[in-house]
C-alpha cells in the first residue's frame, strides 16, 4: 500500500458507512472522495502547508461522531442552530420574516444550487474530505432585501472521548441582494479525548448585501481543527469576517474571499496560543473586478512553545483596476520559545491599484511595562493589561455587543493566566 492509500483506507470505511445521500448529493460526495483519495493529506513539501504538519491527523484513526446531547454548556440565543458531534440538535422555534435557518434537508433545491460550488475541493484535501462526508449541515437563507437584526448563531459542539472522532461541519449561508445579516459560528469542544473538526463554510453575499461573519473557535487542547471559509461577495456588497482562534492543538484556518465590482471585504483575526498549540491562518482575497476594497488585520498573541503561521494572499486580477487593499499581521510574543512565520503573498496583474502590507513580531514594550509598574500596578497585572491592549483593536471591531462582552471576559481570564 502506498502512504496515501494507507491514510485514506480508514476514511474509505467511514465514507462507505455513511447514511445514504439523496440523489442530488451522492455524485458530489463521490467526486469529492475520489479527489481526496488522489490528493491524500498534504505534507510540508506542499508550499501551502509548509509550516503546518498535519501528520498527527493523518496518523489517527477516527470514528464517526455519535449522536447525543453534548456535555458542553452554551448560552441560548433566539436564532440559534446547534450541532452536536455533527448532528443537528436544536433549531430556532420562530424566525423573523425573510430568514430561514435549518438543516440541509429543509431545502434541497437551494442547497443543490450552491453547495460545493464555492469551496473547491480540487486542490484542498480537507475540503474534499468534508464534502465527501456531508450528511447534514447548517443552512441559512436570507431573502433579498431582508434586514435581520438578531445575530444568527451556529454552534458546533464536539465532545472528545477515548475513541477519537471526526466531524465535518458544513454550513451554507446564502444572503440575497440588499439583505443585511450577522452570522456567528462558534466551535466549542468538551471532554478529554482527541477529536477532529474539519469544517467548511460557504457564504454567498448577494449584490449590495451587508454581511458580518464571526467565527469563535474554542476547541479543547486535544482537538484538531481545520476549516475553510469560502465567500463570494456580490457587486457593491460589504462583507466582514472576524476569526477568533483560541483553542485546539493543531489549527488551520483558510479564509478566502472573492470580490466583485465595488465589493468591500474585511478579513480580521485574533489568535491566542500557548503551550504547544499550533495555529495557521491562511487568507486569500481575490479581486476580480474594478473598485474593490479589502482590509485585513490579523493579530496574534503567543506564549510557551506555541507556533503561529500567517499567510495572506492577495490577488488583483487584470480587470480589477482601482483596487485598494491593505493587510496587516501583528504578533506579540510573550515567551522565548514561541515561533511566528508570517508571509504576505501579493499577485498583482492590474496596474492602477493600491496594495499595502506589513507584518510585525514583537514583545511587550519594556518602557510601557515600567510606566505601569511605576504607578503601583504589579508586574503580572501590567503584563496582562498590555497584552489585552494589544488585542483591543480587533475586539473593538466586533459589532455584536454580547459577543464582544463574552470575548472580553475570556481574554481577560486568558491574559491573567499568560501573565503568570
Amino acid at each position, binding site marked *: 500500500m502506498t502512504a496515501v492509500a494507507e491514510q485514506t483506507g480508514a476514511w474509505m470505511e467511514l465514507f462507505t458507512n455513511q447514511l445514504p445521500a439523496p440523489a442530488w448529493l451522492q455524485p458530489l460526495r463521490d467526486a469529492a472522495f475520489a479527489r481526496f483519495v488522489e490528493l491524500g493529506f498534504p505534507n510540508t513539501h506542499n508550499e501551502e502547508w509548509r509550516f503546518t504538519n498535519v501528520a498527527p491527523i493523518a496518523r489517527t484513526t477516527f470514528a464517526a461522531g455519535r449522536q447525543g446531547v453534548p456535555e458542553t454548556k452554551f448560552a441560548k440565543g433566539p436564532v440559534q442552530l446547534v450541532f452536536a458531534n455533527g448532528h443537528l440538535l436544536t433549531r430556532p422555534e420562530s424566525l423573523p420574516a425573510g430568514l430561514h435557518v435549518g438543516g440541509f434537508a429543509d431545502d434541497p433545491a437551494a442547497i443543490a444550487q450552491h453547495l460545493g460550488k464555492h469551496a473547491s475541493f480540487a486542490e484542498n484535501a480537507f475540503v474534499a474530505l468534508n464534502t465527501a462526508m456531508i450528511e447534514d449541515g447548517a443552512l441559512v437563507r436570507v431573502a433579498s432585501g431582508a434586514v435581520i437584526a438578531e445575530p444568527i448563531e451556529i454552534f458546533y459542539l464536539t465532545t472528545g472521548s477515548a475513541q477519537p472522532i471526526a466531524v465535518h461541519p458544513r454550513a451554507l449561508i446564502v444572503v440575497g441582494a440588499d439583505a443585511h445579516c450577522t452570522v456567528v459560528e462558534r466551535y466549542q469542544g468538551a471532554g478529554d479525548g482527541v477529536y477532529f473538526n474539519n469544517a467548511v463554510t460557504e457564504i454567498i453575499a448577494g449584490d449590495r448585501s451587508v454581511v458580518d461573519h464571526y467565527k469563535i473557535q474554542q476547541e479543547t487542547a486535544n482537538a484538531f481543527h481545520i476549516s475553510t471559509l469560502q465567500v463570494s461577495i456580490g457587486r457593491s456588497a460589504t462583507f466582514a469576517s472576524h476569526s477568533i482562534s483560541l483553542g485546539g492543538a493543531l489549527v488551520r484556518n483558510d479564509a478566502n474571499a472573492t470580490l466583485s465590482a465595488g465589493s468591500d471585504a474585511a478579513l480580521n483575526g485574533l489568535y491566542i496560543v500557548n503551550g504547544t498549540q499550533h495555529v495557521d491562518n491562511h487568507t486569500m482575497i481575490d479581486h476580480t473586478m474594478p473598485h474593490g476594497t479589502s482590509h485585513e488585520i490579523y493579530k496574534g498573541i503567543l506564549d510557551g512553545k506555541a507556533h503561529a503561521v500567517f499567510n495572506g494572499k492577495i490577488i488583483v486580477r487584470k480587470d480589477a483596476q482601482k483596487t485598494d487593499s491593505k493587510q496587516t499581521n501583528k504578533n506579540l510574543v510573550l515567551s522565548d520559545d514561541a515561533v511566528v512565520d508570517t508571509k504576505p503573498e501579493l499577485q498583482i496583474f492590474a496596474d492602477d491599484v493600491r496594495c499595502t502590507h506589513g507584518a510585525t513580531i514583537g514583545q511587550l*514594550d*519594556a*518602557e*510601557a511595562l*515600567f*510606566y*505601569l*509598574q*511605576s*504607578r*503601583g*500596578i*504589579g*508586574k503580572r*497585572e*501590567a503584563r496582562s*493589561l*498590555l497584552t*489585552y*491592549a*494589544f*488585542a*483591543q*483593536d480587533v475586539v473593538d471591531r466586533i459589532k455584536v455587543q454580547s459577543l464582544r462582552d463574552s470575548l472580553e471576559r475570556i481574554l481577560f481570564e486568558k491574559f491573567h493566566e499568560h501573565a503568570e
Partner: protein
Amino acid sequence: MALLEIKDLHAKVGDREILKGINLTVNAGEVHAIMGPNGSGKSTLAQVLAGRELYVVTGGSVTYLGKDLLEMSPEDRAREGIFLAFQYPVEIPGVSNMYFLKAALNTIRKHHGIDELDAMDFLNLVRDKMQIMKMDQTLLNRPVNTGFSGGEKKRNEIFQMAVLEPKLAVLDETDSGLDIDALRVVSGGVNAMRSPERAMIVVTHYQRLLNEIVPDFVHVLAEGRIVKSGGKELALELEAEGYEALGAYDEPEAVGRV
C-alpha cells in the same frame, strides 16, 4: 529619620557608568531642585529611584523611610509613596487613562488597607483634580498618553501625581514643553501638593519653573556627581553665569541625548 537618603550611589547602563557617587538627603516637607547639563545623569537618577531595571546600581545605597529602596520592585516603591513624573511619558495604546489610573489608585489603596474606590467615587475624585490641572475630561477616556501633545503629557503626569498623592515625587523636567499658561497651571498643581509630609525632587533646566515652585535646596549634577549645593539663590547664579563658570560641565562625549 530622613525620607530619602542616597549615599555614594553608582549606576551604569550597559558598561557605561553614569552615576558616579551621588549623595543626597531629602526630608519630608522639602523641595529639592536638581539642575545640571544635558547628559549629566539627572534622569538616570530619577529612573533609578523609581526602579527602572535598565539602570544597574553598582554601588552605594538608597534608604527610603528606613528601608532599602534598591531591594524593592518598582510597583512596591510606588505603593510606598514614590512617584516619578517622566521626562518622556510613555504612550500606551489600548489602555484607557481612566482604567489605568483607577487600577493604580486602587492597588495603592489596597496596599495600605484602604477600601478600593468604585467607578463613581473615583470619577468624583478625578473630576476635582482635573479641575485644578485645567485638564480636558476627554483625555481621561483616551488611551494613556496616546496622541497627547507634549504639554498634555506633562499635565497628565502631574494630574496622576495629584490623584495618587505620593510621599516623594520626582518631577523630571515637567516644565519642558509647557507653554507659559500651562507652566503656571502645572506649578499651581504642584504647589497645592506641597505639605509637611511630602517631599519633592524637581529636575529642571530653567529658573522660570523655580520662580513658581520655589525650592528649599538647589543641587548641580554634573558628570554623575552633585558638584554644588545651595539655597534657591544658587539657581539664579547658574542662570546668570552658566554651568561652566562653576566648573561643572560634562565631557563632550556625555552631552545630550537627541
